[in-house]
């Protein structure tokens, strides 16, 4: 169980979640990126952006 960093809802996250994985808060719908797994830390995932690379 981990707390959503956006709305403080209690979230169930799979035990085998990996760094960089995106999970969604079922309460507020925020897309959250797993920053670290030990300890489990979530941050609001950046919006998808266009790749303007050449």
């Amino acid at each position, binding site marked *: 169980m981990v707390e959503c*960093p*956006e*709305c*403080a*809802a209690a979230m169930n996250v799979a035990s085998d979640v990996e760094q960089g994985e995106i999970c969604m808060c079922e*309460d*507020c*719908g*925020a*897309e959250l990126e797993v920053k670290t797994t030990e300890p489990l830390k979530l941050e609001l995932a950046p919006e998808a952006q266009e790749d303007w690379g050449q």
Partner: protein
Amino acid sequence: METNNNQNNTQEPIKVSIVGASGYTGGELLRLLLMHPKVKVMQATSERNAKKLIKTVHPNLRHLRPIKFTSINDLVACDLLFLCLPHKTTMEKISQLKQLAPKIIDLSGDFRLKTKEDYQKWYEHEHTNPELLNQFVYGIPELHKEDMKNANYISSAGCNATCTILGLYPLIKAGVIDLKLPIIAESKCGSSEGGNKFSLASHHPERTGCVRSYKPTRHRHTAEMLQELSIPIDNPNNAPEDNGAEQKPNIHFSATSIQMIRGILTTSHVFLKPELNLTELDIWKIYRSTYKDQPFIRFVNDRSGIYRMPEPKILTATNFCDIGFQKDPQSNRLVVISAIDNLMKGAAGQAVQGMNIMMNFEETLGLEFPGLHPI
């Protein structure tokens, strides 16, 4: 959801009667109570419709038990009386009605306020039974559940008051609103708030499509908001010396009728104490801790989808109060949005919730309907 290990599991249903059952609130009570597994509806009174089947007035109840309206003079004793009489009538008849049932839930405004002076101020008439005012528990379970468990008399709260109070209560309790500034609340209301008595104002050509500012000031439910939200700070995150401080919010309320039959959407503007530097996450935590284990409060503040904020449309016939908020990034203004069905969480549903608590039934019994979509 909250569970109660000491619930009343007796098999025998309680006997209830509804006084003044021909109105919209009475009809909703009949709909809920005729389907309630622990209730037997004994009598439903209406002077105008005495001896007629209830389906003649409430056609949605056509297939249910064929009860006929009776006169109030033919009421017999029962376990619990619901009173849906017009304002001022209940206070005049209460002494007689108390003889018929040990428990009463009154849905009028006659016992919501705690002082006779408030009736003079807000209702502009004398209260004829002021000595009984303190015997009634104000009927918003999310504020007074413990008192309701031991109550014999509940005064079910006003619909606009319920919607506004539930939105503001956690913030005022936590002591985070700058009460030197006013709180401004505005409700958009459905036409069923006006009851089933018609007038020129409710005539179809006049009422359809209107956005009518019908009570810009002096709405009677403001008195309930002031009464119930004048509470001391109670916030475990505060320093002990900050808790217990009495607060007197300055609430300004307006009501607007819109093109909707059921429902209330209340938008409340509050200003947070600037020194607290609160984020939206802090506000979320306040709401979650206050309404933890309250089965009829839902938080609606979604990042995607169509219904991102509370909206009364999808609450039709449910007992939920949906609450959302947004903090203005340019200021300390917090906009709180709350929505209910005025006939349910604002009247009959909340009264049945109160009955469940009072009778030690599961709080959600008979009120589990999740609503319709689309509608």
